[in-house]
């Protein structure tokens, strides 16, 4: 649900990073925070536990620039990935404009990936959204690790609809901006369709 303010000439959109625990959602946001100019970003807010696991959400407001005189702002959120934070995940999906699913490429995390993707679809459906109709991209993260599943297999298991997908190594930024850009573009094109 975007917020278009003709008075201050601003467009605000919400993008949510989803995925299983420890897949690198927060790391994606941290890299974006590190690499953007101070005037483009707000504070990176992390509501995390003492062990740096996301408890409720991370939040990063990002002002990308102007389109036709309108300031374009994206609000990036992550959900807590751990299974037992299901209630919190649902809340964060409220009013979402685009979703990025961050998958953990390691073979032993495949079940967690599938479970998280199912959870995403169920939670979206509960709020009246359909993942197939939402701006959406997949990031196969942790490609630098030795025990990763081949891309064909990941696509078969996690990307049945063949949406845009990217290889990622979030701590060094591989694929981070590419993934964000893909979904941001879809979100803006979606706005174009409606207005």
């Amino acid at each position, binding site marked *: *649900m975007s*917020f278009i303010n003709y*008075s201050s000439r601003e467009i605000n959109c919400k993008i949510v990073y989803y995925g299983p625990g420890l897949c690198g959602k927060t790391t994606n946001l941290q890299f974006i925070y590190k690499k953007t100019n101070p005037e483009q970003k707000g504070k990176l807010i992390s509501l995390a536990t003492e062990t740096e696991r996301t408890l409720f959400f991370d939040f990063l407001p990002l002002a990308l620039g102007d389109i*036709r005189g309108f300031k374009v702002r994206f609000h990036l959120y992550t959900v807590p990935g751990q299974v037992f934070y299901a*209630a919190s995940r649902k809340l964060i999906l409220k009013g979402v404009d685009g979703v990025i699913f961050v998958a953990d490429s390691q073979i032993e995390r495949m079940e967690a990936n599938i479970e998280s993707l199912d959870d995403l679809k169920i939670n979206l459906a509960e709020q009246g959204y359909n993942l197939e109709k939402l701006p959406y991209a997949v990031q196969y993260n942790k490609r630098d690790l030795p025990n990763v599943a081949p891309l064909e297999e990941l696509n078969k298991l996690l990307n049945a609809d063949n949406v845009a997908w990217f290889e990622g190594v979030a701590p060094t930024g591989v694929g981070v901006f590419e993934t964000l850009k893909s979904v941001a573009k879809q979100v803006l094109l979606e706005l174009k369709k409606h207005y």
Partner: protein
Amino acid sequence: MAGSDLVMYEDEFQKIDEELQKLHQQANATVVFLVDKNGQLIASAGDTHDIDTTSLASLTAGNIAATGGIARLLGEKEFTILFHEGEKDNIHISLIGQRVILVVIFDQRSSLGLVRLRVKKTSESLTKLFDDITSKAEKEKLEGKTAESPFAEISDEDIDNLFK
């Protein structure tokens, strides 16, 4: 898609701004904010200089969402008012018309009683304003009328430029 986008034009924004200014004055508040339930800041009144308004908006919405989750677990529809008391500053958060969140920050120069009283008045006016905005948007959609849209002409190049 669930729900619809919130589109706000100049005159509506002005009316909302007036209401907030009035509340800010009458409640003797430090700052007054209006936040969308999804965490987007809509408008503010008072001295916002030292406050990170974007973060405050997002966290307030998170707060309301979490409290709403608790309410549903208990079989309540929603808790419409939250109040946090600090050593110097206090914050009064209320949900208006299921859609927007009104945040009032105040110190010892005001009181909870006064804030509650004034917030109630403002809530009524804002509820009506947002009803008008919603019905106007629906009417325009029905008539297929759209104001000069910044998106109609948007090109791939425009979007690519954002990421340079």
